[in-house]
């Protein structure tokens, strides 16, 4: 029984965290442009002017 007092709040807390994260993701338009997000990783970061490039 005493274990439950710890485990149940932990389970609920973890569930709530997941739910909160999902809500956050929706509010921040994380699902708005799924194709674009997949392509954006391919964009190279802009080099500063005069930055030496490794050959």
């Amino acid at each position: 029984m005493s274990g439950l007092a710890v485990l149940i709040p932990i389970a609920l807390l973890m569930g709530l965290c997941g739910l909160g994260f999902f809500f956050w993701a929706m509010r921040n338009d994380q699902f708005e442009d799924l194709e674009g997000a997949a392509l954006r990783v391919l964009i190279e970061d802009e080099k500063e002017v005069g930055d030496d490039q490794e050959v």
Partner: protein
Amino acid sequence: MNASVALDDLKTAETSEDSRFAVPTMRCAGCISKIERGLADLPGVIHARVNFSTKQVAVSHTPELTEDKLKGAIGLLGFEAQILADNPLSEDRGDTKRLLRAVAVAGFGMMNIMLLSVSVWSGAIGVTKDLFHWLSALIAIPVIAYSGRPFFASAAMALRYMRTNMDVPISIGIILATGLSLYETATSGPHAYFDGVVMLIFFLLAGRVLDGMMRDRAREGISALLKQTASGAMIIQSDGTTVWTKAGEIEAGMLMQVAAGDNLAADGIIIEGRSGFDFSMLTGESDPQNRSVDDEVLAGTTNLTAPVKVRVTAAGKDTSISDIARLMDEAGQHRSFHVRVADRAARYYAPAVHCLALLAFVGWMLAGVGWHQALLISVAVLIITCPCALGLAVPAAQVVASGALMRKGVLVKDGSALERLAEADRVILDKTGTVTMGHPVPTNLSLLSDDQKSVALALAQSSNHPISKAIAKSLIAKDILPAKIDSVIETAGEGVSANWNSVGVSLTRPQKGGNGSATQLTMGNIAQRITLTDEIRPDAEAVVESLSELGLPASLLSGDSMEAVTPVALQLGVLAQANAKPEDKVDTIKRLSKQGDKVLMVGDGLNDGPALAAAHVSIAPGSASDVGQQAADAVFTSDSLMPVALAVKVARRTMQTVRQNFGLAIGYNILAVPLALSGMVTPLIAAIAMSTSSLIVVGNALRLYGAAK
């Protein structure tokens, strides 16, 4: 992280404006960075963000930077952009998001309550069981209050108008089961149905989310097809400069500068210049008409050949287009009377289920088990019979079917459209732009010599006339390179002339005669006639045939002249009505509807808008006017008409699957209801029965995946 922000001036950020542009030619990651970085470098741009899925760019900028300039800037980066008006189809996107949040909450509650329920089922007793029931109640009540709202709201709405829909039995079931479970918990009873209630809400909401996502996806697809240019015009100020003005702000008496290729935003009278105007979207007429000084021109037509100045006589609500919009509103009102199949089923289902639960209660009371036991059994009946199949099976089938259609290039706007499409028993086709491609195609280019071809291409490229465009398009497709010509002169209504190797060459006035149009290519003394026809879409005949095999006889209804309609009607072997104005088209459809026909209208132009709205169900090609695409229930993107027949076939198969799902649901009830009536259903059995039946109907719906093959 992608260098999309350039804070030039933090003070101006406070008064920024947002503009959106459609950039359909974006293809790769390079395009994203090129546009975002290119725009960010522009002074006055605060932030630019590309949405690749919808092929749009959102720019926030200072008010001094106009939409025109931004469009030009995107053009300089190498992308053709269009200014986006506020998307008329995206209004109710928020609904799906709200439902998605409700599903997430219900899913969270379902998992946690199930965790506790499993331990109760596996034999927790005494204090542990009571504790778990209380914990379940603690989780379930806020979850039900939050996630159940869509059902409660819709049921309350239906009851207020003395009607019933399927949310009424759902809401009653949820409230009764929750109330009873609370009582059970408070009195340390053996059965609490919190898990069942929350699971029910989860499954039903999942069905709604699917329905909403399908609607959003199709609408997004269609709005990507819309030309979406914020309609407006270049207005000439008193000092001679021109300013881009939105259509809503144009007033009678203003002076518009209309470039060749532009659409007119208001009705008016030409005061300078002359040009050909394309009326086909407005009237269905396929031949351009010449207008010069003092002639009237109408909003919604396209200026083809030369720039003109127009004095506005009517703008906004007074223009000729607005009449069509009003006609469309009136014609579309009957649509709301269509009762979706799930609600129709609920009309019989709900009373039957409620009677059964009531009978169970009365029966067990008479049997003398006490009101508590009797109530417990009748709640079990309500939970077991709750219409999962109606709530989940119908949207699941429709979503899978519309996904299959989408892969074939047919965008169906919502589930109700599929239901109505399955019922159609007659099809009416518009001619210009629907049965035909809507633009002329040259038929005898092979007669031209190589020199003639390249000169013709050079001349055609310098003009905006639809015939020139058609000739240029087919010559470019044949890999012809344009010849070098100089001193090009275009005379409105006459043609283009120029010099080539100091020989006078011209592409002149299309002469009428026969079907379609023609133009004359002159090089020195040699003249060559190029004939063009507005080609019938490939396999149009086969489509008409397969539609009539499906039991949908076809007929033509066109605003074009009898001479233009007859050959098409003959080739397709169908009846035709010509010279039909928009109101005539609506009348024809209303007459057929009165006879009991369920008309499928296929059309594209502005003039078809009211007819598309009036028909039982309607489809528009992707090349249709924005009005046509918005009025239609479905849009197909291919050149072929075959998707029309395919859509009808898939819609019918979908309804067949929906009926199968109803059959499965009834079969499940025949098995489960006696158990519930006899008082043998515990929360465990209810949970198993509910999830199994839901999985079975969803599984059956998934068989539609390949339905469009």
